[in-house]
């Protein structure tokens, strides 16, 4: 058999779209199960309080109310599961104490959603208020403890040179960095920066409906989840069932961004209620509930220091930070800083000391939000490099290039002991500067400044770690063991050639807009030659896919894609035997092209897949001893993560009188290795940029001193609108990875990881002539205006 060279990289219209543009897509709240009941939750109005009583009598007597549950009813199920269960685990319903505004205290199940909500309003909860710990630095001081049963509010600490309990044994870089600071020729800069809390805001609120069948002893669960298999595992573990007794389906999912990469109490509780009541039970969150009971992201403060020489050599970088976990540990809460740790030195070969303390506060849980730890780490690093460049009077692009890992140094073992697979960082930066005509931009900026206009250029480089990932990471809790899934981060691809020659592909992902049906059909079409239109891709279903981990961390193509590629090779191996039999040729002489297999050199004489399938399913017509059927399954466990990278540039103008920031241009060069569908890749970058720019410019989860979220609606929490953003200018370089057979790295988060610091660097550059050195995100006009006033005072 001859393997065809991969011809991926084509643009095809998405398979997903005909349903979605005509209103025929089916999301969880569009599905109705016969006889379903509706759940609603009583939520705490206080950030920290003891519950002295819950009076449900009036609510229970209302027509249409079927059941009301409190902690007493569900305590036996245990707390919500988490992968790294340090800190405080979340009770399914508040058990005597509430620890953040919005925490669920009681669940009502009723015939309609309106009745359930009316009953929620009729439940009286008496609280004894306690002093909440809202500010993360206050939490870190341990003056007031959030949880009585924890020794400290600091529940975990991550250090880049010592993150794996001695398995990777790296020297403490601090003495070397200290020595560099003492050098006569060194320059030291320091910054204190906030990376504010964010609300993910998937436009589809989370929704789940569960049905327990006592005869089958099985749950059917439809959930707007990025991780259907993990949800099945967690529910199975919670209810004492095998994971295969929980059938989870994630149909169309209306955006995730990490918010749906979690198992939530409501998902457990609707299962519980269905088991109790013998009817399906549904919960769909409101937008306000989404803001307080679904996970939030980011929420770090850090002080950074950089030391280097006047000619731009960086001699050391230090970061000491605090990350806000919120009140309770959920899925990957405490692991998020680890993702930042791995890219703490970015694209640079520089001594790096990096330590982040994880603290609990009386706020909702934080967890993975697009980028998850990596945007925070890159934000701090790239802001600090700009400050260093400004201090020594060197162009920020030159400082970066001077300290990059060079293209001949890969695989490059970084400051955390991990090996970066492949990279060519200077190439991406050079392309960016070329496309931007950087020299002309600098002149434009100077000319504008000469007129008194505040124009700035922001630059950032980033490297990302994604495509999770190596199963060995489960040893430190970065896996799925605590959901009862020892399968770690492996990808799954099942390729079945049906008796009519069409193909069904089943993958272990849980996409929420990433176009997997299209991309995987391209892969299978490319490998087997089956018509694109005759390939159907299924995902998000735990009984269809033998295993799966889900869609997050820019992993799907690199892992489940690779598994599918491997499954295709197995199908081809068998098809080649059948084709050789039919063509009376040697197996080695069979090649695959459009339409199906053929003998090398005669691509016009193709045996159709329906002919191959016909033999495969009627084995007496095939070669002696052939096993019947034509399908293969592969599980792919990569040896390393993948490390995409890129360089971004923003040109902005700040209105001196109003503080308003206008984005004049935004350019990005991203390298995600080979691109399967450039249209989809670009779309992922666009969306990622919007979220990074959204953080830089607009978004912040603001709490008052009592722990009340002041930004719980979309008017207080402004995500970018079309009028806020420019058209983006994208370019790419292509540096394939050797970690998987398709050479793909992942692109889901790159735009976000590269953009927030690019924007802030641009605004600080614009304000630098006034003496401004730092403005914290979000760069809303009032804050920028104030920075201008302060600088001029």
């Amino acid at each position: 058999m001859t393997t065809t060279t991969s011809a991926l990289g084509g643009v095809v219209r998405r398979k997903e779209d005909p349903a979605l543009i005509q209103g025929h897509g089916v999301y969880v709240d569009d599905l109705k199960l016969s006889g379903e009941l509706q759940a609603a939750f009583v939520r705490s109005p206080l950030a920290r309080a003891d519950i002295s009583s819950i009076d449900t009598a009036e609510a229970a007597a209302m027509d249409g109310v079927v059941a009301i549950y409190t902690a007493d009813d569900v305590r036996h199920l245990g707390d919500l599961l988490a992968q790294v269960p340090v800190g405080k685990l979340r009770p399914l319903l508040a058990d005597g104490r509430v620890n953040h505004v919005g925490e669920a205290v009681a669940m009502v199940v009723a015939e309609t959603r309106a009745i359930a909500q009316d009953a929620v309003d009729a439940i009286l909860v008496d609280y004894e208020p306690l002093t909440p710990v809202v500010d993360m630095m206050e939490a870190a001081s341990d003056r007031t403890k959030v949880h009585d049963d924890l020794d400290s509010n600091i529940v975990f600490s991550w250090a880049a040179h010592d993150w794996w309990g001695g398995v990777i044994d790296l020297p403490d870089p601090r003495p070397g960095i200290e020595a560099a600071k003492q050098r006569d020729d060194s320059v030291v800069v320091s910054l204190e920066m906030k990376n504010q809390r964010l609300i993910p805001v998937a436009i589809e609120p989370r929704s789940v409906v569960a049905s327990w069948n006592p005869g089958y002893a099985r749950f059917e669960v439809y959930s707007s989840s990025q991780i259907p298999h993990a949800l099945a595992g967690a529910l199975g573990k919670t209810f004492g069932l095998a994971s295969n007794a929980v059938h989870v389906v994630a149909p169309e999912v209306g955006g995730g961004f990490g918010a749906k990469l979690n198992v939530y109490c409501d998902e457990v509780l609707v299962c519980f209620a269905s088991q109790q009541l013998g009817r399906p039970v549904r919960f769909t969150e409101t937008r306000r509930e989404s803001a307080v009971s679904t996970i939030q992201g980011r929420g770090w403060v850090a002080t950074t220091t950089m030391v280097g020489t006047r000619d731009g050599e960086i001699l050391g970088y230090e970061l000491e930070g605090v990350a806000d976990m919120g009140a309770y540990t959920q899925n990957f809460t405490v692991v998020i800083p680890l993702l930042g740790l791995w890219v703490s030195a970015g694209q640079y070969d520089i001594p790096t000391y990096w330590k982040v303390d994880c603290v609990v506060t009386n706020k909702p849980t934080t967890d993975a939000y697009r980028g998850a730890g990596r945007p925070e780490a890159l934000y701090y690093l790239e802001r600090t490099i700009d400050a260093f460049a400004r201090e020594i009077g060197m162009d920020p692009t030159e400082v970066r290039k001077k300290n990059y890992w060079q293209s001949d140094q890969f695989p490059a073992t970084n400051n955390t002991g991990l090996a970066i697979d492949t990279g060519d960082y200077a190439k991406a930066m050079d392309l960016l500067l070329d496309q931007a005509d950087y020299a002309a931009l600098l002149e434009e900026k100077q000319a504008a400044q000469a007129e008194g206009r505040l124009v700035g250029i922001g630059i950032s480089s980033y490297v990302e770690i994604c495509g999770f990932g190596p199963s060995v990471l489960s040893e430190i809790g970065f896996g799925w063991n605590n959901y009862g899934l020892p399968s770690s981060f492996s990808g799954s691809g099942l390729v079945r050639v049906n008796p009519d020659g069409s193909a069904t592909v089943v993958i272990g992902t849980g996409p929420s807009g990433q176009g997997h049906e299209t991309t995987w059909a391209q892969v299978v079409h490319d490998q087997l030659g089956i018509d694109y239109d005759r390939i159907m891709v299924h995902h998000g279903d735990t009984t269809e896919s033998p295993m799966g981990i889900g869609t997050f961390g820019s992993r799907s193509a690199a892992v489940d894609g690779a598994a599918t590629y491997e499954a295709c090779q197995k199908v081809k191996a068998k098809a080649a035997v059948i084709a050789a039999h039919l063509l009376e040729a040697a197996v080695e002489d069979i090649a695959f092209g459009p339409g199906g297999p053929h003998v090398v050199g005669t691509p016009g004489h193709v045996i159709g897949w329906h002919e191959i399938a016909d033999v495969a399913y009627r084995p007496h017509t095939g070669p002696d001893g052939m096993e019947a059927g034509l399908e293969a399954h592969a599980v792919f466990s990569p040896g390393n993560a993948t490390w995409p990278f890129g360089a971004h540039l923003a040109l902005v103008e700040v209105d001196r009188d109003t503080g308003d920031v206008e984005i004049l241009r935004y350019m990005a060069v991203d390298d995600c290795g080979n691109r399967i569908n450039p249209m989809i890749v670009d779309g992922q970058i666009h969306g990622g940029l919007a979220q990074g720019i959204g953080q830089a410019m607009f978004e912040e989860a603001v709490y008052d001193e009592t722990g009340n979220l002041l930004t719980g609606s979309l008017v207080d929490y402004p995500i970018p609108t079309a009028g806020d953003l420019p058209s983006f200018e994208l370019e790419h370089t292509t540096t394939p990875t050797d970690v998987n057979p398709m050479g793909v790295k992942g692109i889901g988060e790159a735009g976000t990881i590269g953009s927030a610091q690019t924007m802030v660097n641009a605004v600080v550059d614009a304000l630098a002539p006034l003496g401004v050195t730092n403005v914290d995100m979000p760069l809303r006009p009032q804050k920028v205006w104030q920075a201008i006033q302060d600088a001029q005072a």
Partner: protein
Amino acid sequence: MDVSMTVNGKAVSGGVEPRTLLVHFLREDQLLTGTHVGCESGYCGACTVHIDGVPTKSCMVLAVQADGADVTTIEGLASNGDLHPVQEGFWERHGLQCGYCTPGMIMQAAGLLEENDNPSEDEIRHGIEGNLCRCTGYHNIVKSIEYAAAKMRGETPPAPEWEVAE
């Protein structure tokens, strides 16, 4: 209370609670689930439908307020199996990812192009400001609407960026 209206060209009626929102009447009584609920407060626009030809957020309208109205939802936008140019544009120019905001966005864009079939990029961006998308960064939504506008004017749409770039 009884309400009657025309939905996608068909006369429909039903009994509703006074507090029933039009979006819930469409989704739950008429089983037209293409109109989505994103915030129930008028900010996100996922529930946008046409009422008497005007794009309207159906979570801000009570079902009884739409009594007698002519309502078009995303399910009724294509005619005789032919996609509306805006639907075609979103498909051709990758104007959607998760698809949740898409029905509302398409209805809003269709209304915008009814008013002005040759909008500038700026007019498109401001014309869809009331509809939030968290996936696309709006870049390809703008391209999709430009595609549709060209089609509606009887012109050849601008080539896609990915072919220009390659």
